[in-house]
């Protein structure tokens, strides 16, 4: 963070972090459309994805307004490279266990549910706090997003409990997904100059202060799901600071291919 960084720069970077989270997870969840385990879950994933894309649009629109020039929600989503994305690494992972970027395997619904649970448990707290942001537009987006995210959390939590306290297979799959994904939650609490600056002037929230509340949500759900809380240790990912996994490049290649093949076109 250089001395010349203005609050506008921080606001832009902070909004991008929130928007990139929403668009990347929205993109992932929508992959289930037509492939879900039961129609109701196709609908639920579509719904969650729609909410997230909607959040991303509002946040990118705010960002674009502050950047000025020709920037639009779509230039931000479609014409930035992976190193410019500021989403949590957790959200870009494919719907399966740990494999390299160009491996191929079946999608696993337990991975999807556990990720949505871990992330929405954080975001209900983040949006709640951001309702009090000094930025009125962000506060308004937070209020709207909070309602949606409460539903996402309830949906994921209900399934986490069903899986954990369901069959032996579902328990094992949920536990494996938790073991795989929990280390990525370390990134939530990791230092980020943008988050620190945004919290400092009342735009953002100091995520570290939310940790006890997040722990309580997680522990409570895991207890009900009869799952063991996996260690969140080891490598701390840095997606929110622009250092991603091998997966984001593929996700964006697909997401952006058509828009980039027709630069400047209106849709």
């Amino acid at each position, binding site marked *: 963070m250089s001395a010349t960084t203005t609050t506008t720069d921080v606001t832009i970077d902070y909004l991008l972090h929130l928007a990139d989270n929403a*668009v990347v997870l929205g*993109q992932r969840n*929508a*992959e289930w*459309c*037509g*492939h*879900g*385990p*039961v*129609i*109701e*879950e*196709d*609908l639920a994933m*579509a*719904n969650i*994805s*729609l909410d997230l*894309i*909607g959040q*991303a*649009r509002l946040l*990118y629109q705010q960002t674009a307004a502050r950047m000025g020039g020709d920037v639009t*929600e*779509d230039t931000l*989503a*479609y014409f930035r490279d992976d190193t410019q994305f500021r989403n949590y690494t957790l959200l870009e992972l494919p719907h399966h266990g740990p494999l390299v970027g160009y491996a191929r395997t*079946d*999608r696993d*619904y337990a991975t999807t549910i556990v990720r949505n649970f871990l992330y929405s448990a954080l975001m209900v707290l983040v949006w709640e706090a951001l309702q009090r942001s000094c930025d009125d537009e962000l506060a308004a987006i937070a209020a709207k997003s909070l309602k949606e995210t409460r539903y996402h959390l309830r949906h994921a939590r209900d399934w986490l*409990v*069903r*899986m954990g*306290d*369901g*069959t032996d*297979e*579902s328990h094992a*799959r949920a536990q494996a997904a938790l073991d795989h994904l929990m280390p990525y939650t370390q990134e939530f609490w990791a230092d980020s100059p943008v988050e620190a600056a945004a919290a400092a002037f009342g735009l953002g929230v100091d995520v570290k202060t939310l940790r006890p509340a997040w722990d309580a949500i997680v522990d409570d759900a895991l207890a009900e799901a009869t799952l063991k809380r996996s260690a969140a240790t080891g490598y701390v990912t840095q997606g929110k600071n622009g250092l991603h996994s091998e997966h984001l490049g593929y996700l964006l290649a*697909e*997401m952006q*291919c*058509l*828009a980039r093949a*027709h630069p*400047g*076109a*209106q*849709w």
Partner: protein
Amino acid sequence: EELLARFEARIAADGRIEPQDWMPEAYRKTLIRQISQHAHSEIVGMLPEGNWISRAPSLKRKAILIAKVQDEGGHGQYLYSAAETLGISRAEMLDALHSGRAKYSSIFNYPTLNWADVGVIGWLVDGAAIMNQIPLCRCSYGPYARAMIRICKEESFHQRQGYEALLVMMKGTQAQRDMVQDAVNRWWWKCLAMFGPPDADSPHTAQGMRWGIKRISNDELRQKFIDATVPQAEVLGVTLPDPDLKWNPERGHYDYGQIDWDEFWQTVNGHGPMNKQRLATRVKAHNDGQWVRDAALAHARKQQQRALKEAA
């Protein structure tokens, strides 16, 4: 006999048959076949458009497309519920689909090859579906008629959205206009075939008409669709790929060329470009999801047992 007479009288008076009412077995079977086939079509129909969600070229179009595909899933859901009122379970219907005994609309056995396909499916495929479905809103079986009212309303919305997306593309670059024309070329004839074989060859029509399940013939609906669509194509600025298409002032309708019924029957009989892929994808989703459904059931049972224990 008296029951049958009362049933026929109610149909003749344009009254509604409800689940608790007596109905002839053949009527019940016909409805189950038709409603479940319609439900399957909605579910399978999520796949061709779902293919473009990840690549939608703007966030607005991505959101519209997700919402649309979600609506299709929702239609499938109510239609399965409507069929369930006739005494068949969703599991039985899905089993019939997955084993190939039940059909779904053959239009979904074609691939979606460019982004304009999404708009063209909205405009033409949904347009043709609405033509077929509007008369069903007055169908004699109450739950089906009510489901169709809701579905037709949403489908009309999708059709307008599809058409609007194409209008924007046609005002765009040459590459965008080419995509629209390419999509129209691929889908036009397939949409005409959606109304089913010519009336002369259509086995189910007569009985369906008598029972108030079907109310307008295939050829009439097809003509209505063409008459409504040609002016829309002109506004859009695309060419419908039929050199024989022209206004016939004597008939007061558009004349049109020969539909390739061999291609239609080949696809209906399992040999279209995507029949195997569509069905195998649904079967895979169902099989891959077995453990998830099992988990929900097992958990519900555990919950129930715990509640019983507490109550005891």
